[in-house]
């Protein structure tokens, strides 16, 4: 349920003000390009970019698959895991198709106890969706035009997932006016901190 009062007024006001401020300060549109652009878009760069995005899609798909399989989730959270898990599987299939024979097999994951309750699951879902979204918005500009158009159709879906997970976790679904792209280095650091990806 989108309960009334789950999110405090203070959180919202602060979120709105920050977002407006960041944009008004010119950071998003008029400012310099953050450290995102690799070299000029090319087929080989597309491949590297999609290989990186595939790792994240694999992680997301595995997380939701485990949550659904474990069966500990309830109500709309359970519905969220089922629907979003299906989407992530479709994204994995799409990216694997683009990569063809170059696609690496999915790694093994260990999600610990994160799928054992609605609360733990949602906290992790918010984190991996925010990370995936930042990765896509950061990586997309390195793609050639055709691939960029395809990735854009995934960006907005990841954003929908993120907002939905945040709403279920009683967080402001859209805390800022412009989402910040993340560099590959930032994303990899975040993923490493979770210890979800097994070694080897």
């Amino acid at each position, binding site marked *: *349920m*989108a309960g*009334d*009062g789950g*999110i405090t*007024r203070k959180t*919202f006001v602060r*979120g*709105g*003000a920050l*977002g*407006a401020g960041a*944009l*008004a300060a*010119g950071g*998003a*549109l*008029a*400012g*310099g*390009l*953050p450290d*995102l*652009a690799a070299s000029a878009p090319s087929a080989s760069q597309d491949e590297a970019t999609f290989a990186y995005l595939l790792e994240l899609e694999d992680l997301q798909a595995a997380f939701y698959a485990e949550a659904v399989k474990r069966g500990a989730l309830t109500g*709309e959270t359970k*519905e969220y895991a089922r*629907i*979003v898990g299906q*989407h992530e599987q*479709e*994204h994995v299939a*799409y990216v694997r198709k683009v990569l063809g024979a170059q696609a690496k097999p999915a790694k093994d994951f260990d999600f610990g106890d994160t799928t054992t309750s609605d609360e733990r699951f949602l906290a992790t879902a918010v984190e991996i969706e925010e990370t995936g*979204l930042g990765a896509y*918005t950061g990586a*997309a*500009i390195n793609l050639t*035009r055709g691939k960029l*158009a395809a990735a*854009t*159709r*995934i*960006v*907005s*879906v*990841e*954003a*929908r997932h*993120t*907002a*939905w997970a945040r*709403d279920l976790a009683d967080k*402001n*679904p*859209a805390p*800022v*006016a*412009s*989402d*910040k*792209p993340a560099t590959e280095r930032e994303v990899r650091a975040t993923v490493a901190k979770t210890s979800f990806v097994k070694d080897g």
Partner: protein
Amino acid sequence: MRRRDDMHDGPELELQLAELDADDALAEGIESVWGDSRADFLAKAAVGSGALLAALAAPAAPALAKDKGKAKGKRQDRSILNYALLLEYLQADFYTEAERLKTLKNESARQARVVGAHERAHVKALKGVLGGDAIKRPSFNFHGVTERPQAFRRTAVALEDLSVAAYAGQGPRIQSRPYLVAALGILSVEARHASWIRRLAGKTPAASAFDEPRPKPEVIRLVQATHFVSTPRKRARTSSKRSPRYTG
């Protein structure tokens, strides 16, 4: 409890006039305001808002032979950013009016406040980038939709989904990389808005694994079909008031 019966709706076309025109509110409003049939209204609209929208929808003027490359890319970028600006003006006014009229309560009021602030920030940012090339803010007439919570939410769903589809369609065509990064950052926020309002309206927040982009002419046609874009002269006579709604 939330209604769950429509949690599985597909990537349906959200912004159809029928969907927007809940309870024939627009049609009623139009007739009561002008005493016109819808056909007459459409003919009139073609002169006012229609001209503006058509101008936006038209492809950029063909480049001179020696004027290719960068200059053309810049012109195209400006045209895309102005198109985005129109949609942001529309959304910003929509939320601002609902706030002003105090139509909404609780979570819905919070959504309108937060999202309205974002849309106004988008307007400000786009105007800042476009400078003297920015299109002027058109006048809007929401025909009472901002006065009724349910109609408001349904229309907000349509506008947010449309804005996602518009950014997805034109964003990847932006040549300047800083603008492209910014457009993706805004697209992502519009998609969060869409997700949020869909949930409030009892719809599944993410209906499909891939969002469908919409070409510019189609978006312009859909915006035109709402009759929300008004002319300044008409605005003076028809701006939304809580009461009386129909002055005949």
